[in-house]
């Protein structure tokens, strides 16, 4: 159907939140140190809600740059 696949760079950026919020759970699932009054695991996830957005923003930039390059080449 001629739909463009996402680039490897964007996919890798999208993988970061999965590693940070899911696969690495045993590294951060603890109470200490408490940060801003939150247990560490809760703080970690809140922080990664923000950091995931940064990752996706970067992925978006990668895709836009690629689109520009593609349309320039045509």
């Amino acid at each position, binding site marked *: *159907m001629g*739909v*463009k696949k*996402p680039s490897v760079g*964007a*996919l890798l950026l*999208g993988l970061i*939140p*999965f590693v940070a*919020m*899911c*696969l690495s*759970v*045993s590294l951060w*699932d*603890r*109470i200490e140190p*408490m940060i*801003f*009054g*939150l*247990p560490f*695991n*809760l703080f970690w*996830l*809140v922080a*990664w*809600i*923000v950091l*995931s*957005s940064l*990752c*996706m*923003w970067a*992925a*978006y930039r990668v*895709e836009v740059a690629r689109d520009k390059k593609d349309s320039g080449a045509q």
Partner: protein
Amino acid sequence: MSPSAVSLTTIFVIVAIGVAIGFLAGAHRKMDLEQWTVGGRGFGTLLMFLLMAGEVYTTFAFLGASGWAYSRGGPTLYIMAYLTLAYVVSFFILPQIWEVGRKYEMQTQSDFFSTRYGNKYLAGFVCVVGIASFIPYLQLQIAGVGIIVSIASFDGIGRTPAMAISVVLLVAFVFASGVRAVAWVSVLKDVLMVFAAVSIGIGIPYMYFGGIGPMFTALAHSRPAHLTMPGATTNLGHTWYISTVLLTSLGFYMWPHAFGAAFTAKSGHLASQRRRHAPLHHHSSLYLLCRLHCGFGRARLAQWRPLALNHRPQKLPALVPGGDRRSRCPDRNSARRHFHPDRCDPIR
């Protein structure tokens, strides 16, 4: 005015405004099938955002999530991870779905499968699976509405009438205005939910503990195991967490309504742009967080029964349906005894 009169009036006004918004959303528009299902593919960033946020944040945010935090503790954190990761997934799939959808004029998930794989039986199967999954989902949501209304009205409106009335009103305005009604009614709902979540989720920790930090400190001292996985359960540990988060985030767009929302966007670029900001802008994450606080707070509060919410401790499990259902499996039973020392009677 008595408290119950105040709450009944509040409920009536909110419902009336919500229904009015629902009907007005589709007024002055020629309502053909494309307008009804995908809003004529004309949703801008704001409506798209509201539709996406609105469809995810439901009675679960108020009842299920805080109920889990209260009854199970640590494992509840999976909600924050899977929603954020579902939005990561959407970045990669929704623009493509949108593009194909516009090209082939698709309106539903089944249209996509029918065109993409050229098999009407597959499309029919997808449709049947979607509807079958929706029945328990809707049942849960409607039961949640019944609980919320009957408690908020001090039992002035019973669960069954509340459920019946809400379904009739919902079906009426969705029938009249389609997906536009869904998006616009979420404006009202989101405003109210943020207000309620912030006031309860921050208010209760401040009233009873002097803040969110002190609440968690108190909880970390009295029940440290409750804050990490597996919390009050025996089996919801890290393996469970990883498999559940992967399943629910990667599978999120199997929901027909989540999938179909991609067709409403004005441009595919917009769909991805909106997605890019989604996790950060997710006000909803904020209120989920507040609800988690509230749930964790209750876990602590339940030990001091005289301090329990509204001084109506018998209502406490009703406020947290996650708590209600615990009795069905053994590890939940132990959690129940854990937090309700005098409520350890087995429930059938």
